């Protein structure tokens, strides 16, 4: 009896959910009416099962398991020696052959350069070219080469420091005109954007796995799982006072792999 009532509730709720959807009701209302319909079916089935008063200790024999003792095969069907080791080697040869298309598909990926090139103006994410004084000391901007905003792997952080704050490495003299230092924004650990700059401690912080890089010391990793510094982009100032790149990054940006010898 209760099964019938429950099924009646299910029918009403299901039709209710249908009309709610037809009347563009809120998703929550449709979902709850449909859930009520399904719950009523569950109650109906449960009540029907209970009403059976069926026994729960019926027994059925289990299968016998090996080791089996099969009837001996007729002499002409004895397979001993038919499938020798040579067959396995032949099968192996075909597996090697089948691998050919996949190996052909796999090409050693070319070293991925970025969109930066010598003389490319530094623009912000709106495409506006930046002069050496456009970022205030302590400030930061995500920058791209001109006409290439959003180009993959090219995202770069432009950070403005006090003129003499940077501990410039001998091979990087003049890369940061007027305290404008630029590092790749793609983390060398797992490729996340190194999105957070803590200007009071001169640290770049990756929100994915919390690697921390020292902005004053060539973006060397000082904490977290990253092991390689963020590559630095060499900057210059052109005749019109705009920041430009001196060329592409001198080393691969982003996470390492076996073939990217650094």
């Amino acid at each position, binding site marked *: 009896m209760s099964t019938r009532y429950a099924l009646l509730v299910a029918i009403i709720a299901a039709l209710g959910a249908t009309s709610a959807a037809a009347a*563009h009701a809120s998703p929550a209302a*449709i979902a709850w009416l449909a*859930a009520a319909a399904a*719950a009523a079916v569950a109650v109906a089935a449960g009540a029907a099962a209970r009403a059976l008063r*069926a026994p729960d200790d019926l027994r059925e024999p289990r299968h016998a398991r090996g080791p089996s003792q099969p009837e001996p095969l007729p002499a002409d069907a004895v397979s001993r020696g038919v499938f020798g080791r040579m067959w396995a080697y032949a099968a192996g040869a075909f597996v090697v052959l089948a691998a050919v298309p996949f190996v052909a598909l796999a090409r050693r990926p070319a070293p991925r350069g970025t969109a930066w090139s010598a003389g490319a103006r530094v623009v912000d994410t709106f495409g506006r070219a930046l002069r050496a004084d456009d970022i205030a000391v302590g400030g930061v901007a995500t920058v791209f080469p001109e006409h290439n905003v959003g180009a993959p792997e090219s995202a770069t952080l432009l950070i403005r420091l006090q003129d003499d704050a940077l501990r410039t490495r001998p091979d990087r003299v003049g890369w940061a005109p007027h305290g404008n230092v630029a590092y790749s924004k793609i983390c060398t*650990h*797992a490729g996340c954007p190194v999105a957070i700059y803590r200007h009071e401690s001169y640290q770049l912080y990756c929100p994915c796995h919390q690697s921390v890089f020292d902005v004053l010391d060539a973006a060397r990793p000082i904490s*977290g799982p990253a092991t390689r510094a963020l590559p630095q982009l060499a900057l210059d100032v052109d005749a019109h006072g705009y920041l430009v790149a001196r060329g592409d990054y001198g080393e691969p940006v982003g996470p390492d*792999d076996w073939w990217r010898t650094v």
Partner: protein
Amino acid sequence: MMVRRIARFFDDRFGSDAAIRYFAAKIYPDHWSFYLGEFALYAFIILVATGVWLSFVYDDSQARAFASVVALSRDAPIGYLIRQIHHWSAVTFVAAILIHMARIFFTAAFRKPRELNWLVGLTLLILASLTGFTGYSLPNDVLSGVGVRIADSVVLSVPFVGAWAASIFTGGGFPGPLLLSHLYTLHVYYLPVAIGALLAAHIGMLTYQKHTQFARDPKHVVGRRFWPDYALRTLAAFAATVAAILALAGTWEINPIERLGEYRDYLSPNPATPDWYAAFLDGGLRLGPAFAPTIAGHPIPAIFWPGVVLPAVVLALVAGWPWIDARIVRDGHAHDVLVPPSAAPWRVGAGVGLIVAGFVLTLAASDDIQSRTLHISVTALVTFYRWALVIVPLGAGFLAAELARDVRTRTIHRNAETESVVALRRNARGGFDEETPRKTA
């Protein structure tokens, strides 16, 4: 009656009556915990049903994927609801598989002759997680996009073959021209077809070998007839799964990509945490050492250890468990009768230890949020979690084993008091058979 007429129709054409009668009369052992795997199966059915609908509106091109998912949610409440149901079903699917697997583990249902089905089940868990991850990535929103980028970095880190594999998958570089298209093909074709095939194998093996049971009668299956008794019960389980998922979908918004925005490789969500079932992997990446050795000039990136080696070791351990377990108990015999978890305290300890280790790694995946709310530095939290990853699972494992031992002792004493002891009877082959004396009451 309708069922009878349908059976008659097929019998007239295929002579199927004997088979139908056989399956209708088949006995299924009954216990609440035997429905956990069914919840997973039913969640998968809902996933396929809602997924087919979603495939009508999704656009897998890099340029329009995000917009197509936003439009689907914006244009009609039903589109929004179906995406909600789909995502909640995915969460339920993975969760039900994990809990089902824990039940199998603690009651030792993986023992001979069911080792193969344990492996099939483990493969299903991996495929379910991969399907979840690929599906979660399809909207191309900034949170999932960062997740795919991390996955790409993990693949890249594999020595020798990693870069090749990654370039085949993405079409070269990141995001790569083929990335979304490949994720989509995996998500709607290869992975679900593989899951369907393995589910068939899983249930086929279960049906053929017959279900395990708690009743101590090793020679018989003890339980309920399939038709109509068990059929009604499993129908109730199906309807309950649907009801629960609909209620979740109507109550809690899941993955509101509209508020996150589209993926750009220079934009980052903060905090950046993955879906819960992938969080333990992310926790591993956060705790992993900054150790990147170089072999003949070729780097092995630090992400390789927690990203590839750790999951591989855990998987190998779990996959090999039926054989490891048989070694430990020196028992190579087949078993159809389950044991209560307390019967093997060391197994309880091992299982609880592994689960707790997963929890520690999952917690570590939100160390940045904890750092902000608790005002503790991330470095201190990483040190804490590294120690916790060793100490807490060991402690929890020993504690759980000790509790199980206590339960076992009490059970033995209680059974001794109430005469429902197990009798051992010498059989003709010289071995012992267990017998439960029938209760007189």
